[in-house]
């Protein structure tokens, strides 16, 4: 197992390098003047476009820009993001914790409901609950996530005034920002920080703001998990040891809980790290709708505005997270699956 993981670790930089090359190869398609246009906010500034191209080195061939960029990255400088109005590295550090928090909050219901529903569907295969779970999961998957997001926003904020957009309400926001209150951001996760600072009302406030986007993410991401859990469970139920357990006369709930579900969870465990990665893609739309200050909203905006350092920084960061997530999934899989563990 150690060598398996070691091999994965060795490959990590190779993939990382490939990712950067891929992104920069894409940028080759852009005309320098178009990229210079991203620095212009007002048609009244047009006279200076050539000077802007020279100033930002946009007239250099892409491989030169790539080399410059790579050198900068190794000195810790990822460039300046036009849309975030801050250095890319700083932007990532600022935008990632809220997204992480959102992802974690959405993750809990996804796993709970997903595992429960997938098991139920497999155990009662081709019966009502199986069909219902199938319809449920497919329905959520069959409409674009922004439709769900806007509907959630309309109902939970517009009608009920429960889950407002943003990250904190004005009162909480001003409290957190006011240096007199000495609110320390230990983790960057607002809910955790609120508890650590002993401010329960801020915890509740932060949770209210997380609920809307988390609900949307849950609706959109749960489908896959239900399906995977179902087929994994079906496979396990067919295995010899389950049949043996059944033939021994063990009660069905015991068989399912003790023997089947535990083993069926193996692919789900690996899938869970991939679910987090999937959520990172999902936040692009959800955060835009709920005006949640996370990395997804920034990334989408950077792409629209052709903020090249922003887009590259965002895409590469997300790629890095994905690669690490995949690595974690492999490790977990190796740990839980005896066939690999014993190698």
């Amino acid at each position, binding site marked *: 197992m150690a060598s398996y993981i070691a091999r994965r670790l060795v490959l990590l930089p190779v993939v990382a390098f490939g990712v950067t090359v891929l992104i920069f190869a894409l940028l080759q398609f852009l*005309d320098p*003047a*178009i*990229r*210079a*246009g*991203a620095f*212009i*906010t*007002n*048609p*009244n*500034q*047009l*006279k*200076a*476009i050539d*000077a802007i191209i*020279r*100033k*930002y080195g946009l007239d250099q061939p892409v491989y030169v820009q790539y080399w410059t960029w790579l050198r900068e990255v190794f000195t810790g400088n990822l460039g*300046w993001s036009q*849309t*975030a*109005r*801050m*250095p890319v590295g700083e*932007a990532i550090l600022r935008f990632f914790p*809220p997204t992480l928090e959102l992802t974690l909050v959405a993750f*809990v*219901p996804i796993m*709970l409901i997903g595992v*429960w529903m997938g098991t139920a569907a497999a155990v009662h295969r081709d019966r009502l609950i199986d069909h219902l779970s199938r319809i449920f999961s497919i329905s959520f998957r069959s409409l674009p996530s922004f439709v769900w997001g*806007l509907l959630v*926003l*309309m109902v939970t904020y*517009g009608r009920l*005034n*429960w*889950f*407002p*957009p*943003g*990250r904190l*309400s*004005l*009162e909480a*926001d*001003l409290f957190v*920002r006011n240096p007199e209150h000495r609110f320390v951001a230990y983790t960057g996760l607002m809910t955790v920080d609120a508890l650590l600072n002993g401010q329960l009302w801020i915890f*509740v*406030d932060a*949770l*209210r703001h997380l609920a809307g986007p988390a609900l949307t993410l849950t609706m959109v991401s749960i489908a896959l998990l239900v399906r995977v859990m179902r087929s994994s469970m079906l496979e396990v139920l067919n295995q010899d040891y389950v049949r043996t357990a059944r033939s021994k006369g063990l009660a069905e709930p015991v068989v399912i809980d003790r023997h089947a579900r535990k083993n069926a969870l193996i692919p789900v465990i690996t899938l869970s790290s991939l679910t987090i990665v999937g959520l990172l893609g999902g936040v692009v739309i959800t955060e*835009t*709708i709920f*005006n949640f*200050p996370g990395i997804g909203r920034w990334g989408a*905006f950077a792409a629209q505005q*052709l903020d090249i350092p922003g887009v590259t920084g965002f895409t590469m960061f997300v790629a890095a997270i994905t690669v690490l997530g995949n690595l974690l999934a492999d490790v977990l899989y190796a740990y839980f699956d005896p066939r690999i563990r014993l190698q």
Partner: protein
Amino acid sequence: MGSSRKLLALAAVILLAGLTGVAQGQVRNPDTLIYVSFADPETMDPAYAYDTASSTIILWHIYETLVFFSGSSTGTFVPMLATEVPTVANGGISPDGKTYTFKIRDGVKFHDGSPLTAEDVKYSLLRFMFMDRDGGPSELLLAAILDTHGTRDERGALKPGLFAEADRAIQVSGNTVRITLKKPFAPFMSIMAMWSMTVSKKWAITQGDWNGTAAGLSRLNNPKKPEDTSMFNKANGTGPFKFVQWDRAARQVILERHDTYWRQPAALRRVIVRVVEDFGARRLMLQQGDADIVAVSRPEQSGVEGLPGVRIIDDISRLITDGIFMNMNINVAGGNPDVGSGRLDGAGIPPDFFADINVRRGIAYAFDYTTMIRDCWRGKASAGNGPIPKGMFGHPSGGKWYTYDPARAAAAFREAHGGRVWTAGFRFGVLWNTGNATRACIASVLKANIEAINPRFRVDIRSITFPTLLQQYRESRLPVWILGWAADFPDPDNFVTPFMHSDGTYAKAQGYKNPEVDQLILRARFEPDPAKRRAMYAKLHEIAYNDVTTLYSYRVDFQVMRSWVRGWYYNPAFFGPYFYPMSKQ
């Protein structure tokens, strides 16, 4: 499962939190005003900012100018940091129109408590001129005072001697600042009302900003990005609000009342400017009272009409002229997808297609302004008769313009290019920036109108991203494009130059050159007598009608706010809401 019980508890907490939400009907956050728009500011530095979002925040709120606009007028001024508005009569303006003397007000304090001096004013003006970033606003003062367009030569080096010249042009003695222009420049007072934002010299230097000498210029000049200036994220002005914080991740700026302000301190204790892109969220924030004033674009208007507790103020005149631009010398080098075959064969147009006045007249007569105004602007725009918008000095209200007349349009097209336009037909593209629903609508109207004249006429409408649009029209690649121009300062010169001068931003891209126009623009710019000036601009509008290179229209805007917002008023020169006189009740 034990975790499902926890989940239930969690749901209960969230529910409870929801129920304790603030009840409707009462004023939310009575001493805080929240303005929600859709564009981020670029910087807090008054010498770098040249976008509406930044100016909305800093101009007249954090930093103040020597003079200010009187009420809703753009041509009359009241003193602000100066004690009186210089005129020829009170001796503030020299008889030759070149020297302006401003007496600086006593007892004005910066936000850090230090007093305002005439030195601060001089420092601020010099700093504004010599920051001169590419594409920045510095040219406005450089052109007005030093009659030059930039501080750098062709190779990008600072022009020798220019600083010394500027240093001499702005003289400080005691508490007066005397500015001597190279040439008399009629719009100078308008420029001073917007671009003389005054920073504290001492404070700036302690922040590591420019030290005020020629030797320090190389560090000040042409910063690469907004964060490279020390005032990017800091401010110390004299205005009614202090800068507290700009959180770029949360996309909000917090301003707080300046309690030792030289006038009556503001009624609002706090102003928060937030950016929320999605209209749905913005609208709901307004509905729930989490936003007091929101930016709404015209096509979204019916989403906020009739919201309880919300007031819509319409018919706000803006100093903006929108145009449909026709290109008389289309650049087709290396292929151009918007001219079809590139020949007058029914499948394209030649590069000089619009050079024939009959084509331009045909389009002007074919275009149905009434439909455009009704459907694209919800009735809130009017046909233009030249570059100078309504409500601005120099706009001739009785100016002639084309009205929808298919018969005359057909007659003009029949004459164009020796009759070949009518027999062969044509095909060309009309472009605008993606996401602008109003312009998309205008393009559709234009297409339907032109194609209805003759079945052989074809118009392709296409949207491209804003940067691409700017780049391509500048390279004269677009046959027809739709764009607007907003005033840098409220003066007709700022409109006739880009639209009509052969070196102007738009006219140059359109390949328009009329020596009479160029001369007239220069003469009007330096003409001190308002009556004579007015006649010259009327003449320019007449030429705009005759030469018809552009189809103009003037829009009016609207502002959406909670009805509990008091004290709102507007001036066409404003970039956004003016918070100082506002309150909530």
